[in-house]
């Protein structure tokens, strides 16, 4: 039996510092928002891309904002926070792709929550943990 998950808590910055590994060349920025639409100021977001590998980790600020350097391609995200007893996992698409089997498996009404918006020097992707705009999260 696997070791159960526990919340990262509010003090993760002591042991999980921000980092950026690999050759990310665009910014992926966004906010983490709760079910009331309020910013989550104590979340930590991790980005992972394979081939070639890019890993990044960033805490949210008081406005719930985070920013990570990634390659210009699909990105897997993990979100940890106080109040999350386990991480939630989502996937950022940089454009709608009708041929992608994962996107195709998602309710069309919610598919837009997985698609980032182009902005200046990168992309924007807000994460809604709960509520009417709830981001699609995946079970691995």
């Amino acid at each position, binding site marked *: 039996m696997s070791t159960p998950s526990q919340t990262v808590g509010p003090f993760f910055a002591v042991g999980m510092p921000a980092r950026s590994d690999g050759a990310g060349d665009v910014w992926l920025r966004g906010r983490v928002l709760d079910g009331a639409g309020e910013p989550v100021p104590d979340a930590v977001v991790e980005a992972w891309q394979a081939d070639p590998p890019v890993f990044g980790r960033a805490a949210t600020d008081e406005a719930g904002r985070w920013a990570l350097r990634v390659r210009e391609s699909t990105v897997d995200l*993990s979100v940890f926070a106080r*109040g*999350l007893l386990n991480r939630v996992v989502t996937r950022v698409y940089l454009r709608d792709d009708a041929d992608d089997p994962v996107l195709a498996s998602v309710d069309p009404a919610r598919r837009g929550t997985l698609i980032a918006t182009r902005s200046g020097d990168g992309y924007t992707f807000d994460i809604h943990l*709960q509520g009417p705009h709830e981001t699609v999260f995946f079970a691995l």
Partner: protein
Amino acid sequence: MTSDPPLSFAPYRSTALRAPGLPPVPLPPGRTELTGPVFGQSTVDGREADLTRQHEGEPQGERIIVHGRVVDTDGRPVPHTLVELWQTNAAGRYRHSVDRHPAPLDPNFTGAGRCLTDAEGRYRFVTIRPGAYPWRNSLNAWRPAHIHFSLFGRAFVQRLVTQMYFPGDPLLGHDVIFGSVPAFARYRLVATFDLPNSVPEWALAYRWDIVLRATPFEEPS
């Protein structure tokens, strides 16, 4: 049956507005999910595994050894993977600006450690036994002494952030975060007192093995 706690768990009040309301969508793991970041020896200083030697003097409190193995649910060791931990000092205070608990900081204790597991998946830290501390989830709520752990494993699907607890702690029966885990799985979060691996005249030991989910990860070429 999953050993993980549910995301929505009313006794832990912070879940109310943060736990997703909709069920997750199944994602068949692909190459991205079956690989993960590799942190080499060059990124970790061996001294980071000893939290009692990071400052001029030694921290206050009970020196302990925390060690164990990282394996997967098939029993295979998880070698050369990054383990990060953080904790309070002996008085129950984190070195973090958000921590308002009126307990003293220790100038000789940061409370953060890192190491890579060895070829057999073993890890070992030297630290100080952390303290219990109050939190505002409910009146007179106290967190049992615990150490936060972050593990990457060898694949994105194995990523785990969790907490280790100490055996015999009377607060375990009152803590809603520990209690959010299904009863049959809670023992996995509690370390074992390990007298044989204690160092006479120096430090007691606790053993805590960590089990990541098995995955058909890709061998590095």
